[in-house]
């Protein structure tokens, strides 16, 4: 990251440049959003997900079950 700061400093001729990292709470919000979308998908397929966790995973080939 230091090399990037040096390049930017040279370009803009400014000494105090600080790169802003993605705050942790944004990451958490993203995860929550993903969970929410997943819940929507599961609810749309509610007959398969009875909320007791018995969800069918259909992507398994029978030969992988040998």
């Amino acid at each position: 990251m230091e090399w990037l700061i040096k390049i930017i400093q040279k370009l803009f001729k400014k000494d105090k440049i600080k790169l802003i990292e993605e705050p942790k709470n944004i990451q958490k919000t993203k995860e929550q959003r993903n969970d929410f979308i997943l819940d929507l998908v599961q609810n749309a397929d509610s007959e398969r997900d009875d909320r007791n966790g018995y969800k069918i995973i259909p992507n398994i080939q029978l030969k992988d079950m040998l």
Partner: protein
Amino acid sequence: MDIEELKRNHEMKVDELGKFTRIQVREDEDNAFYQNLAEYIKSCDREVSVANTIIGNASKEEFLQAEEIIQEIVKDINPDWTKKQKAAYVHYEMGKRISYVPDFKFRGSDLGSKLPKNVKNIWKSIVEGQSICDGVTAIERNILSRVGVSTREISSKTHSFLLVETEEGNIISDATWDLKNSLYGSKPMYFGKTYEQVREIEKGQSNAHKLENPPENVIEIPDKELREIFHSLGYTDEDRKFLFPMYYKIQEIKDKEHDSQEEMIDEFLDMFTQDFSEEAMHLSETRNMLEGAMNEMGISSKDLTTKFVYQKSDEECEKPLLSLFVKNEQGRNEIKLLDIDEMQFKGIDVIDFDKEYKPHDLDTVQPFWKQYLPQMEKTYRENEMEEKTN
């Protein structure tokens, strides 16, 4: 041993309620305790109900009948086996004994329904052969504790599974998600996987195993070791492949020449009801397995529909029936319905099917077969809606 002595030595709750005695026990007692309890209950001249959780009671007869079954399982567990072997045996045994309740939108917490009372009680579940995830977990815990294996139930927001203590570390056992695998003799997918591996399998499809605080000291059972464990229990062949007879039957059918896909499906369904009649009684697992089998025979999931339906006369939707529909090129609109009593798939024309069967009363989705009904078969309401739109 009388009940007072049992009470002194074990953590149990005994309530005298009118004409019957209600006994609530822990799920992790040893075998001697249950043998003593069975002796007491046998000799008890009062009505007795036995519970392992707050809801669900087994009668005296149910308890004693289930205890006989459990004792048979316990007898088959070699005391010299490792804890992994014992856990593997019980994990696999669940599929043979228990079927997941095939009910639409069933909620274990719905006290208004008759089902949850039965399916969370260890002894009632065993007698009736039906349960849900925390019921299966309770049965597994109960049996394993009798053979000296300590366990802990793990619960996510929607699901329940098991952490088993072994000589080398803790292992995860989710027998509920493996019910179809153990019923049909295929490789278990949720035994000996780490928490991260289980989450990876369900990625993008479910959060059933997602935990706020994942368990620690969980070890993986690598594929090779898993096969050796199950081989020692008699579930694999000499090459350490799981027996999974259905797979080989499908290959035999696929190798034959058929005039049409429909002919191949009919041959498969005939074979299925003849050779797998006992397994077919487990509706939820059979539904999953049939979908896998159809996929193996080259039928795309978009052309296949399976659904639990009910006879229109079944007002409470108590008896689910498994239906199967394959969209074919000839446009033959026939739905296959598994008739458990005669153990065969019956082909029913979609018009007749619509007259006799319905989806679950709580199911608000348009039944899949409606789209295949001729125009005149549309309901009055649908016609009315169309007129309004026009």
